[in-house]
């Protein structure tokens, strides 16, 4: 990975950026650095927030500063991208049946495919948790196959129920709370991404891999 950019943020954070454009390799590199920081005791580090092309290292300015945190992270670089074989894998049930997939027909039409072909393509892909963001438990899954990639709707739709499985561009997301969205809803999952388990409150770690298992409405 070429030049890494460090950018101080306020008095208490450092943005570490690997590229300005999203790519699979860049996101895997962010994930590798996130794991490496977690294994290293960096003085004053409070939390690390990995994203698609960068991560934010948040620290206690009473204990350390931007320069010391940058030096500590420099010691972990260069770093090879994280590999799927080392990631935890999750299989998540999804129901694409009528009544649970309000935008499936529109996606099929936009992609010039049958609904069954869209379902097959979505269900056959392997996804990676690229980051969480926006709202609690909103895990952005990278890996939507090109043939079923559709842009966001021009205007968001309100009151989308929790558990909606939706896609936009190369990303897929299963919602955890009722929210407006401009993404296309193609299914529903009974999986609880917010588990309620205090030891592992969120089902996925950033970098985990995910695949979908088709279920019918009777199994919901």
């Amino acid at each position: 990975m070429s030049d890494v950019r460090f950018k101080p943020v306020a008095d208490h954070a450092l943005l570490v950026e690997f590229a300005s454009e999203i790519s699979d390799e860049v996101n895997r590199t962010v994930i590798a650095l996130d794991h490496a920081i977690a294994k290293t005791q960096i003085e004053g580090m409070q939390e690390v927030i990995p994203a698609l092309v960068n991560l934010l290292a948040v620290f206690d300015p009473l204990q350390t500063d931007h320069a010391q945190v940058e030096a500590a992270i420099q010691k972990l670089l260069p770093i090879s991208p994280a590999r799927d074989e080392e990631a935890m894998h999750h299989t998540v049930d999804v129901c694409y049946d009528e009544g649970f997939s309000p935008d499936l027909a529109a996606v099929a039409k936009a992609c010039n495919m049958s609904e069954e072909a869209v379902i097959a393509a979505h269900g056959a892909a392997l996804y990676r948790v690229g980051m969480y963001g926006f709202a609690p438990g909103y895990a952005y899954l990278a890996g939507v196959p090109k043939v079923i990639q559709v842009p966001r709707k021009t205007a968001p739709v309100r009151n989308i129920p929790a558990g909606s499985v939706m896609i936009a561009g190369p990303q897929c997301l299963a919602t955890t709370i009722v929210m407006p969205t401009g993404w296309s809803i193609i299914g529903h999952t009974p999986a609880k991404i917010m588990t309620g388990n205090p030891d592992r409150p969120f089902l996925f770690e950033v970098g985990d891999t995910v695949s979908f298992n088709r279920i019918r409405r009777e199994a919901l």
Partner: protein
Amino acid sequence: MSSARLRVVHAGPLVSIQDGGRFGQMRFGVSASGPMDRISFAIANTALGQPETATGIEVSLGGLILECKEGAVSFAVAGGGFSVDCAGNNSTSWTVQTLHEGQKLSIRGGVWGSWAYVAFAGILKAKTWLGSTATHSMSGFGGGALQSGQDIAIDDARIANDRLGDLPCPAFAKPDGEAHVVTGPQDRHFARSSVETFLSSPYNFTDAFDRMGVRLNGPELHLSEALSIPSEPILRGSVQVAGDGVPTVLLADHQTTGGYPKVATVISSDMDRLSQMRAHDSIKFVAVSPGQAVAMARSEAQTRRVYLDELAKPRPSLNERLLRENLIGGVVSGADE
């Protein structure tokens, strides 16, 4: 152990249960929440001898009226210049009193400030989420918004006679019309004249102001070229600029990631004061280097520590109270200003 039961007679919008905040979960899409003005919250708790982050109530300009249905409990109010009426005894924020059975406590917006905090001598019972009672407004998780008609319970309720009286309102808890920022992370993508405009023009708070952020009113800021940045982590204090060129300062319940460019980030030690401003108040953003920002955070923490350590001590006699007020006089501005 005794407990107290309070009826929420009236709770305005955005009156909610908070504790110190829910830290370490931004990587899962969860911002820290907690009080908009963290130091005033810590002061309310410390004034009663409670841990700084113990669960309390954040009161918005919508106001709060509580009626004690059972028991009795001492409480502290800090933050802003709100009007406090406890059973006919009128004061401003910055007071410790006791609420007895049958009495009402009313807290309403006053001469300045957007948020006041009520702490209780005891344990305010509230729902926790991810180990914290702080209310996350987007989801409603945590202790939650208070609703008129509901009852709240305080376990181990105490009457703290050695704590009663007025609190000195520290100068650092008042807005001063300025916020220090470190520019970026996307400052290089703005037209240079736009960064200069941001740092030299006064901006006003608008009434698009809630726990997630406040939209500003002032000169528009322009990017040097059309920019699409990948969604990236953001913080309390990020100044993001949407496509319309209008800056928004993100606050306690901010989204954890966003794709709008940030012209600057407000330093942590100025966020409490900034959050106490009101719609139409004017603010100027002053750039500092990252090193200066760290130095300011350390200096502010030291000033706050001196105040809190003095406040943590009970006040058994009038002489000791006077002595203490002299000791902290250096950081105090009159509450009547």
